[in-house]
């Protein structure tokens, strides 16, 4: 590791992290003793491994690769994947709490974890062969390997069914061509789950490994958002993919959409983590900052902001919890997940903006986490289905009339 990157660990520690999550409706009563231990453990992990450094990582647009191993050790990758494949064998409420706590630290860090768990391990577990599960899942769970998920293309974002990436059956292998864009983790990934069309135009998942000839992963620079997460392209120039790397057990657009359901569920919890951090910081700042000889918390306009933040966080906590129960029962629908993802991210972004105002000028600096969360959330509101696309999913569910095309 270069000197420069070493500095990211030795550098100045951010102000002490006193974060406490609000729980106005005592939602903790709905959690088990084990859920509370999981949340406390991930919170401790985030306070130790992420919040002291993340401000600097983001300022420098630096992806801390070491975090991958650490996520593996703590068990943040694929917590719902069965233990026999290295996963946690935990329920969906646990998964939600893990995502909430990590995103409380930083949305980019949560992106790294949710891509690995929901978008790479999940499809290999759900749609993969037993050989594929055994080959990839334990190494992905432990953080020995980093994975990425390639669905979006330069000309096909909200409309992935129009994708151009394709593969041909060459007898003893497949020949893959095309390009993916906006792929989280891609520049450092060891494996990519790539969605591409076969000669009949049907979408399949393929596992592409780093080192395959014709496969490259150029990095996307100059992001103002998710700066501690690396993003890039996947370029396939006549890549020979072994036949055993095709995910055999599901095809069609439904397969990647199932992965997105799982990831969006995690985002619904995660974004509320970011919202809680903004609220917690704003509440403390308002109590301490004196103007006109009084704490700014004593002004009605500040109280209105704080009250509305807490109201929205509380509503989202209950929505997420109920969705988690439905996920555990296997009953959650795509539209229900859309509602929660959309609600949480919008809530978080609104809270970040209000919290930024409460912090006054300090709110734009790296002394407080607010501006970082706000910039991060601009990606979160766009990826995994944009804010508007989720409205259309709900609209189609309500009316039975899809308005996408």
């Amino acid at each position, binding site marked *: 590791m270069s000197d420069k990157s070493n500095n990211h660990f030795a550098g100045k520690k951010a102000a002490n992290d006193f974060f406490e999550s609000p729980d106005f409706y005592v939602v903790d009563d709905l959690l088990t003793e*084990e859920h509370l*231990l*999981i949340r406390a453990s991930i919170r401790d992990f985030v306070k130790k491994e992420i919040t002291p450094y993340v401000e600097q990582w983001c300022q420098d647009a630096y992806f801390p690769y070491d975090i991958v191993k650490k996520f593996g050790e703590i*068990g943040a990758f694929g917590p719902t994947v069965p233990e026999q494949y290295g996963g946690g064998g935990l329920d969906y409420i*646990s998964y939600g709490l893990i995502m909430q706590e990590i995103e409380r630290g930083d949305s980019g860090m949560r992106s790294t974890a949710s891509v690995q768990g929901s978008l790479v391990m999940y499809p290999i577990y759900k749609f993969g062969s037993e050989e594929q599960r055994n080959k990839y899942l334990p190494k992905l769970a432990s953080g020995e390997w980093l994975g990425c998920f390639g669905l979006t293309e330069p000309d096909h974002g909200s409309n992935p069914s129009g994708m151009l990436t394709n593969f041909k059956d060459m007898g003893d292998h497949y020949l893959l061509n095309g390009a993916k864009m906006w792929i989280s983790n891609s520049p450092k990934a060891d494996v990519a789950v790539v969605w591409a069309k076969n000669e009949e135009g049907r979408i399949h998942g393929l596992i592409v490994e780093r080192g395959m000839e014709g496969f490259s992963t150029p990095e996307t620079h100059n992001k103002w958002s998710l700066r501690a997460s690396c993003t890039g392209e996947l370029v396939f120039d006549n890549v020979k993919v072994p036949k055993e790397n095709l995910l055999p057990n599901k095809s069609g657009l439904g397969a990647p959409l199932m992965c997105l359901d799982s990831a969006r569920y995690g985002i619904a919890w995660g974004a509320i983590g970011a919202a809680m951090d903004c609220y917690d910081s704003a509440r403390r700042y308002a109590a301490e900052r004196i103007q006109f000889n009084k704490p700014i918390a004593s002004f009605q306009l500040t109280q209105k902001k704080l009250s509305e933040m807490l109201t929205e966080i509380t509503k989202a906590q209950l929505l997420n919890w109920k969705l988690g129960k439905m996920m555990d029962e296997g009953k959650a629908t795509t539209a229900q997940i859309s509602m929660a993802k959309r609600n949480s991210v919008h809530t978080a972004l609104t809270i970040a903006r209000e919290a930024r105002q409460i912090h006054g000028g300090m709110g734009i600096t790296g002394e407080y986490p607010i501006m970082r969360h706000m910039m991060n959330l601009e990606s979160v509101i766009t990826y995994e289905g944009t804010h508007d696309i989720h409205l259309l999913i709900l609209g189609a569910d309500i009316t039975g009339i899809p308005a996408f095309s």
Partner: protein
Amino acid sequence: MKILVCITHVPDTTSRISFTNGDTEFDKSGVQYIIGPYDDYALARAVELKEQSGGTITVLNVGTAETEPTIRKALAIGADEAIRVNAEPTDSLFVANEIANVAKDAGYDLILMGRESIDFNGGMVHGMVGELLGLPSVSPVMTLDLDGDTAKMTREIEGGKETIEVKLPFVAGCQEPIAEWKIPNMRGIMSARTKPLNVVEPSSQAAATKLEKYEMPPAKGEVKMIDADNVEELVNLLKNEAKVI
């Protein structure tokens, strides 16, 4: 190697402390409980020793059923089994008696605990357990390494450190930097589900002390900042306001 780690279940260091019932009871409402921070160091070192040379770790807590989440966390961190002596931990001698009672025929090679709890900060239990079991007891232990049946330890002493060697078995009260606190991982939390947590009833010892009343320490007075160059002002205030010189 059989290691016993005794843990306390204590209010989080950031808890607001208040009393009820005419100041005769600690008000537990809204208080988060944690493994005593010094006990947590002892546990972390036990886990490391087990990783190095094998063996089993038993955690022991003298406490009522409400301490079980804290015990479960110790299992998630890496203990193999747990014992809860079902009693309110009223005073040091009572707790030490119960620990000694559990440990006396169990053949532990090491009995580790924190140098003190952080609720009453008595710092006496390790000494008493050593005495009751006829074992050496060392505290506060800053490092602990094993070499066969001998342990090499450093102890904090007034103004310095003391390096000592003790033959196993013995009792140690631990403090930092003996090990770094361990955060349970998700696999540990899963496996803690099925690890045994045995509840035993206390021996019939009665507590030797009775609690009369709790009192808060006096609130901190206001601080006046005086410029370092302004010695006259300081002398004036000490003489005429504080009336101490």
